[in-house]
């Protein structure tokens, strides 16, 4: 449920609007639910509204944790 996607803010517009981008596709959304955004921030968008920021550092850490699982395997297998 609750289809939402991570997008990058590429322009802030008046009236709580912003243009976000994913994979070269741009859409104007509302950012009224998230304060203090700047261009370049990543936000998670649901039904045309940014719900929250996406934290790039946390994303990298999560991916690193996932990759470690594979490295463990290699160690065991080798």
């Amino acid at each position, binding site marked *: 449920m609750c289809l*939402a996607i991570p997008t990058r803010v590429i322009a802030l517009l008046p009236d709580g609007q912003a243009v976000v981008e994913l994979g070269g596709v741009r859409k104007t959304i*509302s950012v009224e639910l998230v304060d203090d955004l700047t261009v370049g921030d990543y936000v998670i968008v649901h039904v045309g509204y940014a719900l929250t920021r996406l934290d790039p550092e946390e994303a990298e850490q999560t991916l690193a944790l996932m990759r470690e699982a594979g490295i463990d395997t290699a160690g065991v297998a080798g």
Partner: protein
Amino acid sequence: MKYVDDFRDGEIARGLAAAIAREVEPGRRYAFMEFCGGHTHAISRYGVTDLLPPAVRMIHGPGCPVCVLPIGRIDQAIQLALDEGVTVCSYGDTLRVPASEGLSMLRARARGADIRMIYSAADALALAQREPERQVVFFAIGFETTTPPTALVIRQAAKLGLKNFSVLCCHVLTPPAITAILDSPEVRDLGIVPLDGFIGPAHVSTVIGTRPYAGFAAEYRKPVVIAGFEPLDVMQAIRMLVRQVNEGRAEVENEFTRAVTEEGNLKAQALMAEVLELRSEFEWRGLGVLPNSALKIRERFADFDAEARFGLRYRPVPDHKSCDCGAILRGVKVPLDCKLFGTVCTPETPMGSCMVSSEGACAAHYTYGRFRDIPVTAA
């Protein structure tokens, strides 16, 4: 696609699959419920099941707002459009849901009802502003994820003093549904459904944070791992749940740290509290009437409450007698156990809630997993 493709990487998936297989204790079985349809969808669409050891069983939960929307609510929306001549707007997902008398919102449109598909709550408000001669009702559904935009447009409509805009509010809450499952006799007393933990909601949790799940860990002794909706997130969450079970822990852990914090989106929460309040009870398709499980529009904003404006009364409509959706939603049965599955109940002609949206347990199995039910011989 940054932060999308990264979490769909097949090579990392293989590593995680090996890690899960390694960490599963011999002879032990693990049954986890993914509450959300988003997780169900990811598991089905990416074939996550094929990467899990046989000892891990995933139970598909009720977390799809379209699936749990009772027939009586859709009837209300259709009644507004057909009898009151109102323009009813809703998200694409709701338009196909079967209602009484063989109708759905799409079929009602074929009978002349003015029903519009919208992508965003803002579209409904814009329509009301653009066409002041029409009464526009936004048929608002969804969990906590979808609720803040609804609250926002109600507040905006009040600020604009719109006279032709109202909302049929059918927003529901996640924690009461999880409680209902944990309190069901099959899980609690009879032990028919072994439930070792939950994968907690992704985008709901961006709004409500991780705190509301603490009770499930503490009171019911069930581990909860909040996880993103990408397939790697699901696998990582399963690995974290397996570890909790192995170590005898029952905690709320957060796999989706890139988007979910402990407190959630406070601005969105404040907005919801300003505009909406708890309903004492609400009927869920498949789960029955649950106390304090949904939201209604506050008295202050009654002018924008379609139930008040049009004097709507709720009339419950039972599901088909043979429909096993309730049992499937609680993990007691799987889709194949249901007599109707794949015979009279298909995605084209859904009878029960689990077949209604592509995220329901039955629809996901029908659309993505039917081949698993039969042996397939390779060329």
